């Protein structure tokens, strides 16, 4: 159970996919025009992520290593298709506003990244909680970006007017450039918070490399970043 809690904390805060790992930037920038869209996209991805992590973890001893990527994609695509039909049937409004980005969940790097780096190496229960943690982390990230963009760009939160009626919305924030501005601003704020916490003595790894490569979503790195980080850390200590 301890392991499961750790996975939740890891996904939500330590390796938050949006603000720390910077994964899944395409839906992050494209669909967060409002808080509802952000939360909807996040939850949809969470469902797919949990299910695919679970199934891939179950099949991890059956899938041969050489064809694991096609196998993962088939699993993920099946769940995305199911979720897409469910959304179309039960929440058509959300289905319309997310549009093309629902089928694109298949190639979301968070889902494939977690399958590759966690679910295919770990038992079912931690994998499920890894999926929940990462998915909720993604949801929180997207909803936060969506809320900021909606408040500034439309004066509303979840469709309710929050700014005084004399407030004139800064339209650029619900257009594409606003996504970059808000994402950069939020990442800057959370980097600052991390720096302050680190100063107070709480150990916060700078990148997602703190736990080593087993829990990292960046499968393209192959341990290079971790090696560089370690070298830098050593260098810093020697200088002291």
């Amino acid at each position, binding site marked *: 159970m301890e392991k499961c809690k750790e996975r939740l904390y890891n996904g939500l805060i330590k390796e938050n996919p949006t603000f720390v790992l910077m994964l899944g930037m395409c839906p992050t920038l494209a669909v967060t025009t409002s808080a509802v869209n952000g939360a909807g996209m996040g939850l949809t991805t969470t469902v797919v992520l949990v299910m695919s992590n679970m199934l891939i973890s179950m099949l991890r001893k059956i899938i041969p290593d050489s064809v694991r990527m096609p196998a993962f994609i088939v699993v993920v695509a099946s769940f995305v298709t199911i979720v897409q039909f469910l959304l179309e049937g039960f929440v058509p409004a959300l289905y319309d506003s997310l549009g093309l980005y629902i089928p694109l969940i298949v190639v979301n790097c968070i889902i494939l990244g977690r399958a590759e780096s966690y679910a295919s190496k770990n038992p079912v229960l931690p994998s499920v909680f890894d999926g929940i943690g990462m998915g909720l982390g993604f949801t929180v990230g997207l909803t936060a970006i969506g809320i900021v963009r909606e408040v500034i760009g439309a004066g509303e939160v979840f469709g309710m007017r929050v700014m005084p009626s004399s407030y004139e919305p800064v339209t650029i924030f619900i257009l594409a450039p606003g996504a970059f*501005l808000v994402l950069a601003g939020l990442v800057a704020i959370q980097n600052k918070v991390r720096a302050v916490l680190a100063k107070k003595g709480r150990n916060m790894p700078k990148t997602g490399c703190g736990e080593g490569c087993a829990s990292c979503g960046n499968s393209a790195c192959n341990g290079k970043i971790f090696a560089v980080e370690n070298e830098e850390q050593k260098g810093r200590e020697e200088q002291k």
Partner: protein
Amino acid sequence: MSGNFNISSSPHIRAQITTRDIMIYVLIALIPAACFGIFNFGISALTVIAVTTLSAVITEAVYQKLMHKRVTADDCSAAVTGLLLALNLPPAAPWWMCVLGSIFAILIVKQLFGGLGQNFMNPALGARCFLLISFTGRMTTFVYNDVVTSPTPLAAMKAGESVDVLDMLLGNTAGTIGETSAVAIMAGAIFLLVKGVIDLRIPGTYIASFVIFIILFGGRGLDGSYVIAQLCGGGLMLGAWFMATDYVTSPITKNGKILYGACLGILTGVFRLFGGSAEGVSYAIIISNLLVPLIEKLTLPKPFGKGGER
């Protein structure tokens, strides 16, 4: 380090002129356009200019103070940015829009990328485009002679109406505060040319390539009054002489400046003739700003003794 052994990288010959001097020259050169804007649009233009310039300088000082950097607000570069932004705003712009534009120009376009010399696009134009996208209605509604929404000459021309070329030269038309009078802008530009602050390459090739583009694709052929109206209308004069020549965001190589000017002219022509809105100078300049590193790489001069025939 002792004065006798001061080892530094080139340049070893230093000019006496400082950043501050150049910025003050630019400010002086902008005075005719600003004064004409105030004369043309009345007290509201003065308010816009004052609020925008002041908030730009304050933003720079406050940011540098908060970030524990050396406060360089007295080098007047923030004042130039603020004044240029003000000249690019409609005279009826409300005060909060001026402040927001200044903050965006100084904080996001300039300081977050490292301050003066590091900004990747012209801060004043970046802010103008930010405001134009956000508040399209307010930025394109011009009040002139108490007539609300009188069209700018360019918009009128795009709609197929005829315009008075002499009025456009002098500036008795609707438009943003600083762009209307070609004569006032030219007076400032000549001052800068004489002082050696800007050279003719960028504005010259900009205007020349724009004229060629208009003659080729404008549909009026060699119609003198149409070409002059296109040149004097909109932000072209202000952009060509004061914003395209910004040191930070224009190429430093000689051939690069010519290439950059040609890019500007063609882009402006494309936006004006084939774009949705009548005006295209600000987008042309900020897009060309982004091309500058590439242009400089392409036109890097060969060191003496390298290259050539074997």
